[in-house]
């Protein structure tokens, strides 16, 4: 693909078509243990300017999902399905073809700001690198642009920073630099993979605000990957909940929080301590551990850990079902609100949502 294709597709984006469209995306890894189904059939779409939160437990495939879209996977990965970016299917693109998109059209912010900047390269160089590469800027222009970017992400004394090395900056500042790099070429899609997990809460808030602000300013789409429901709640338009490589619930943010359909989402929600609850409030837990992605359980992935599971759940895989709101889909036979669920919930209420037997957990 060349640059022209992208520019052409820009028109289509403005015409309201989705910027990113995933259709039954599957990413599997070949390992000696067998095929790891890290992402197993995800269908999504995202318009320009929108933000999507991807949440799920560790190992649920969030990172693999975003890297599958970016095309940044190790060679052991096999992709199926389609990824349409600006109308073009990029699933089969080689690294060489993807290079034109990376940085320029889609870019990424990683979890650990300590590691995601090259420790031995000056900040300035790291920011100007993509500018020269994609926009063909000369050194002076690139440096000026880099300065502007640093100002945009609100780094104090930007001139001085250009000549500093990452270790001379604090974690929060490094993450800002990362964001500046990601924004450098004005991408239309930004992936932020747990951008704040390694940061203090106070800094986390700043960074999330910064990303939100840049998204609005640049009319950029953002995919925010995190395991923290709190983070997505305040910073996204829609949320995709992943479990065991599958999309289990997907809805606009407010809809989701108002009306969680998946017992998994619900349990996740209940297991988070909330400031508004009085101290010593009993937390809900999800027993057991996430499914083995090599030998996923029959039927619903979540069934073995689901306190609401019924025999059917262990046999048959639930399809993604829309609710009344077509934008809200979920994959569950007995969603929250269904009679079977309510019945079971009443039973559980009595036991304080504790799984009966701990050793079942081990």
């Amino acid at each position, binding site marked *: 693909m060349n640059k022209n294709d992208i520019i052409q597709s820009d028109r289509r984006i403005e015409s309201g078509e989705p910027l990113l469209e995933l259709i039954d995306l599957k990413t599997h*890894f070949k*390992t*000696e*243990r067998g095929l*790891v189904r890290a992402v197993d059939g995800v269908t999504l779409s995202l318009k320009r300017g929108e933000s999507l939160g991807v949440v799920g437990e*560790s*190992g649920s495939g969030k*990172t693999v999902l975003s*890297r599958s879209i970016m095309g940044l996977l*190790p060679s*052991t990965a096999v992709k199926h399905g389609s990824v349409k970016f600006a109308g073009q299917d990029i699933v089969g693109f080689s690294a060489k073809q993807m290079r034109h998109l990376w940085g320029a059209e889609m870019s990424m912010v*990683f*979890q*650990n700001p300590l*590691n995601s900047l090259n420790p031995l390269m000056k900040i300035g160089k790291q920011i100007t690198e993509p500018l020269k590469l994609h926009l063909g800027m000369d050194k002076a222009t690139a440096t000026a642009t880099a300065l502007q970017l640093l100002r945009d992400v609100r780094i104090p004394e930007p001139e001085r920073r250009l000549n500093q090395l990452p270790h001379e900056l604090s974690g929060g500042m490094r993450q800002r630099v990362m964001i500046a790099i990601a924004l450098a070429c004005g991408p239309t899609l930004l992936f932020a*993979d747990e951008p704040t997990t390694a940061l203090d809460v106070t800094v986390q808030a700043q960074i999330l605000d910064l990303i939100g602000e840049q998204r609005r300013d640049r009319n950029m789409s953002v995919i925010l990957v995190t395991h923290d429901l709190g983070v997505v709640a305040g910073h996204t338009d829609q949320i995709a909940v992943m479990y065991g490589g599958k999309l289990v619930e997907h809805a606009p943010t407010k809809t989701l929080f108002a009306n969680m359909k998946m017992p998994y989402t619900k349990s996740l929600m209940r297991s988070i301590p909330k400031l508004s609850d009085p101290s010593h409030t009993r937390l809900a837990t999800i027993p057991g551990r996430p499914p083995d992605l090599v030998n996923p359980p029959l039927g619903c992935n979540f069934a073995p850990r689901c306190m609401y599971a019924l025999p059917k759940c262990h046999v048959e895989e639930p399809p993604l079902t829309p609710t009344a709101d077509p934008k809200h889909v979920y994959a569950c036979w007995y969603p929250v609100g269904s009679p079977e669920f309510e019945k079971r919930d009443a039973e559980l209420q009595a036991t304080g949502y504790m799984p009966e037997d701990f050793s079942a957990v081990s």
Partner: protein
Amino acid sequence: MSDATAQANADGAASKRRLGVGFWIAVFWLFIVFFAATFAPWLPFKDPDNNYIVSGERPPYAPSGTHPFGTDQDARDLLARTVFGARVSLTVGLVAIGMGMLFGGFMGIMAGYFRGWWDRVISFVFIIFLSFPALVLAILITALLERSLRTISITLGILSIAPVGRIARATTISFADREFVLAARTLGAKNGRIIIRELLPNVLIPMSALALLGMAVAVVAEGGLAFLGLSVEKGPTWGKVILTGAGSRDLQKAPWIAIIPIIVLFLTVLALNFAGDRIRAYFDVRETAL
């Protein structure tokens, strides 16, 4: 867990958890060599010193049914000499690395665990030994003392103290900072117990992988000494057997004299290296769970 490590673990887990065919081939070879060496006198080998001259034919004799490895210029059976040479080479290797493990390991763990002055003094001793080229020290000792198996084993043993000790120290340090050691202390464990129960098992495995490499080094070092004429005086050793045929004339006219024992030595060293490398990789428990 960061994605990068998650991935690394996942990648690594696949190949890491198995020793692989290569490892077993290496072990098999080592077994053969060790077995033959250990039981050489009771196995049906020829006398390694006897001159099996066939009248009218001038040695060296090429490999044949009677002499599978051929003979050297003095019509001595090279198979027997290689096997008996292995006794010396392997003894040297074992003693050397045994000493390295014992003294180096002990000193390294002490230095790594207690740090402070212990560390400074012991590390300094290690540096002294490392800054001498090992072979120079070996020649110095073997030239000044009698060239017996004991001297040479002990010399190479002394030489392996510092390298083994450094690894032991580094490994100890990396483990001494772990929280499980801290936990043991909060449980009231004394230093001795922490060292033996908590650290030793962790330090020993990387060290034993190193031990195999160290053995390889010692076996080669014996060869080096032999090349300088400083190996054990009496009886065959691998180095001496190789040296007998290493002149360019013999290489051209009777290549088997040097080449066959070189191959045996090479395979043994390769097997030791390889097995060591595999073991290290195998036991390299990176905590995967989570």
